[in-house]
């Protein structure tokens, strides 16, 4: 097909400078390449995707496919082009896991059973500040200044209420001393 298309282009270029007698031949040749390109589109459909389910025994584990972060566990099935892929899973406090698989059109399931990392047990307590900032997905409720701000707002509110109540916002009660017998 491509050979015919190349011939048509070459023939058309020659005809532009040649006698008008070749016009009919040019038309005929131009019609044929058009059909050819249509066929080319039809015969090159997008590659079929395959489903890959990645199951991890711990939530919030970061999952990468071919080095690219695809999300955190639990994940919905991924649609990937068939072929060889490398899946890696990391989570603080656990030993990382990595596997490669050859994915075909029928899809696959990959189970990761991460094991606790005894060498870094403290990392079980998430300290996401730096990474959160870097990833742009801060867990706001884990920021100390959020809670300090909430506490500060409560203090300020209480003080304002106290000041308003004691400065005539409400009527004060007048002390009545006891009667002495």
């Amino acid at each position, binding site marked *: 097909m491509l050979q015919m298309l190349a011939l048509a282009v070459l023939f058309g270029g020659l005809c532009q400078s040649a006698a008008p007698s070749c016009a009919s031949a040019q038309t005929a040749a131009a019609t044929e390449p058009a059909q050819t390109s249509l066929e080319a589109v039809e015969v090159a459909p997008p590659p079929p995707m395959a489903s890959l389910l990645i199951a991890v025994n711990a939530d919030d584990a970061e999952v990468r496919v071919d080095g690219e972060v695809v999300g955190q566990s639990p994940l919905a099935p991924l649609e990937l082009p068939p072929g060889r892929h490398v899946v890696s899973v990391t989570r603080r406090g656990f030993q990382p896991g990595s596997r490669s698989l050859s994915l075909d059109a029928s899809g696959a399931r990959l189970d990761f059973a991460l094991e606790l990392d005894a060498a870094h047990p403290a990392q079980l307590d998430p300290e996401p500040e730096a990474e959160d900032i870097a990833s742009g997905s801060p867990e706001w409720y884990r920021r100390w200044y959020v*809670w300090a701000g909430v506490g500060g707002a409560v203090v300020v509110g209480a003080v304002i209420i106290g000041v308003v*109540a004691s400065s005539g916002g409400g009527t004060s009660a007048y002390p009545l*001393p006891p009667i002495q017998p």
Partner: protein
Amino acid sequence: MTRARLFRPRPLRRALLTLGLVGLCLPALSCSSGGTEPFILRLIADDGSVPSGPHNAIILNAVDRVQVVIAPDRSSGNHFDALAPRLFDGGDVETRVSAAGEWVITLERPYIEAHAFDHGTTFALEIPLAIQNTTDDPAVHDPLMRVTFQRMGEIIASTERNVNWPLLPGDALDVVVFCPDATRFQCLNTPPP
């Protein structure tokens, strides 16, 4: 351990921080609420609906001073301890104990205007009292309460009655104040004919 790590709250530290701040708020809240409930003394101006006797309407504009006196039974030796005059509400309310051992509260016109419930031919004024002793001592007899409505230094309406002692926080007492015929025009803030 880095300095940043030291100051980064863990869940327990976060909870303690929040609890600490809330703990700071509680004293402020308790101060603002004033502790126990007050006793409410509700003075009600006679509306003059009864056509005879001392029943004449008293309008709010006729009253420029209200005074309440609680007089213990002197014959039993009851008395209030001496107390220097104290001013409240910008000086519009004064409390003191007289030389006779009577507790006196005086409410001036600005306070009356600001706190009275005006009903046209009558009005009501609530006076909150912080009771400092609720012990029912049998040696203390029920005192006498005198309430006067004054206008330009003249008593235009008054009432007098015994009150059960001790007054209890959260309770209320309604006292109707009567305007006699002699001052019925003053009670309506109109010149006599």
